């Protein structure tokens, strides 16, 4: 029992950056904008989130400033790919570089060379009354920090929005067939812009969560490829909010399991254990063809007057 709780207690926070960043990714993806700047934006989020918490005091501020920074990057991506119709992939990669550089530069300017890393308080947990008293489930799910609750509420909200509201119906149509959506009066431009801005803000929050829950400080490599995995996760989850949560649980679970196996002194070279999450994902994808569908117009720019788009 304790084993299970201990395991899940590690999995839940490990899921959060994946969930936030992947929901951000599918939000813009469902509007047709294929963002590939996640790795950089998460690092920027971690840096800016940490720096804001450190200088202004308070993690909430840090998260908000990180979200704003991410949103700004999203705005650049959105405008470049809608108003200017620049290639989404190239702009995304350029922003990956830029945000990666900016993250370190800001840290260098504000903190500089020191032998003592500056620290911020970690996020506090807020047990939900009654619910947190449920054995196992309560301990694991309802005794967490606020960002955990936010991530899950957001996922449910996104699912509700996309599949249960008419605004969601309009929203998804933009990523499937913007010309058809446009011909019915749906504002493709505006939809793409807000989805990309909001999506990128979520990605940055996913990054900002890392220093706040794990380390209390920013380090350059702390995102460690999660941004790239988030793209894989969006495909794995078929660009749907509910499947993405399941996919994030799978990623985080395999990751924690891999370390667990090492701690338990399993006599396999640790490199093979560390491969596990990636190999397992590939195997799962073999059976994922049923749900792994992507938005029909993902990655393409829409030009109303061109016959080639739409």
């Amino acid at each position, binding site marked *: 029992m304790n084993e299970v709780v201990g395991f899940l207690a590690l999995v839940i926070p490990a899921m959060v950056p994946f969930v936030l960043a992947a929901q951000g990714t599918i939000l813009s993806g469902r509007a047709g904008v294929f963002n590939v700047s996640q790795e950089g934006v998460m690092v920027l989020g971690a840096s800016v989130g940490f720096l804001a918490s450190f200088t202004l005091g308070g993690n909430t501020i840090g998260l908000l400033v990180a979200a704003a920074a991410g949103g700004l990057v999203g705005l650049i991506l959105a405008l470049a790919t809608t108003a200017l119709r620049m290639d989404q992939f*190239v702009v995304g*990669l350029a922003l990956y570089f*830029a945000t990666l*550089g900016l993250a370190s530069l800001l840290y260098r300017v504000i903190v500089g060379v020191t032998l003592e890393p500056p620290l911020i308080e970690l996020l506090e947990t807020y047990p939900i009354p009654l619910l947190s008293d449920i054995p196992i489930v309560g301990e694991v799910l309802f005794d967490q920090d606020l960002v955990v609750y936010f991530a899950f509420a957001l996922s449910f909200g996104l699912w509700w929005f996309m599949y249960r509201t008419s605004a969601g119906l309009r929203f998804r149509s933009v990523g499937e067939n913007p010309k058809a959506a446009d011909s019915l009066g749906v504002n493709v431009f505006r939809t793409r812009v807000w989805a990309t801005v909001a999506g990128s803000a979520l990605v940055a929050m996913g990054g900002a969560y890392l220093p706040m829950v794990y380390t209390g400080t920013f380090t350059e490599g702390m995102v460690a490829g999660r941004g790239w995995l988030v793209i894989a996760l969006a495909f794995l989850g078929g660009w749907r909010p509910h499947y993405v949560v399941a996919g994030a649980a799978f990623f985080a679970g395999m990751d924690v399991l891999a370390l667990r196996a090492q701690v338990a002194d399993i006599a396999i070279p640790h490199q093979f254990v560390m491969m596990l999450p990636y190999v397992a994902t590939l195997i799962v994808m073999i059976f994922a063809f049923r749900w792994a569908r992507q938005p029909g117009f993902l*990655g393409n720019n829409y030009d109303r007057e061109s016959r080639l788009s739409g």
Partner: protein
Amino acid sequence: MSEVAAPPSTTTARVNRAAWYAGSVLAAFLVGGIVIVLLGLNPVVAFESVITTSFSTGFGFVETLHKWVPIVLCAYAFTIPLASGKFNIGAEGQLLVGATAGVALGITGSDLPPLLLVPAVLIAGVLGGAVWSGIAAFLMVRFGVNEILSTVLLNFVAFELIDYVASYVWPDRGAGHPATIPVGENAMLPGFGEPAVHAGVLITLLLSVAIGLAMRSTAAGFELRATGANPRAASVHGIRTSRLTAGGMLVGGAVAGLGGAIEVAGVHGNMLEGMQSNFLILGIIVGLMARGNAVAVPFVAFGIAVLEVGASAMQRSAQVPIEVVLIVEALILLFLMLSDVLRSKLGSRS
């Protein structure tokens, strides 16, 4: 992700485009210069070293050529599958597995004569890379697994794999870093001149010509592009699209794998963690800047190699922090794209 077709190219159009591109690079450096000034550093010294490092010394030029090789090869690893509409984001994994295969042969076969061993090492690299992209190709054709996903994941698997090889199979105990012991002398590519340029540069040059020709003027190259443009129409007209896309992935992986083997046999003499550097991203950028045009790839790659070599010089000579280099690279890319937009806007007005 769209419009990878090469724009029409008359001579004036080409000159015009080159001027625009030069302008965007300048603009990027201008903005970068402002950042450098704000940091209280000297942008003139910084940029001088970017431009001069590759050309002022023989060593700088050789280093630039040596950096050019993996960038070109990774760019092909990206653009060849892209022609058929597939995104190979796995060049670094393929490069590493190619390097592993190359190093395996270079170590175990160190007694063989160079005439045998060097080609064997390169071929091993090619096969290693092809196997790695082949996994993605198989999953794509057989099970419909998205290739972006599989190639990204296989990169991570490759990182662990080479860490294992460098830690357990042929570890170099004194390296202070995960690295294998050196390959035999006989496995090393011959060099020319002083400082020596390894033969991989020549191989890459020849390969570039071959790939450019193949993509442009062979039936297979045409079929690859046709598949990318409209897979249904291509198959209606007798093209075996899944075989072709899989083939494109395999060739892409093979080229990246060759890059790995050349890095082993030409530059490092062993396999070490981190040898993939940022060739994947640079390769993708080169491929995209060249609009997938195989002929343009080596030229664009040379520009990027000069920049890469010059970028670290900027840090050395003017203490410009490394992250400013990333920002300048991003700006170059953005401004290049922007120049395309502006150029076509102005063009359509006149």
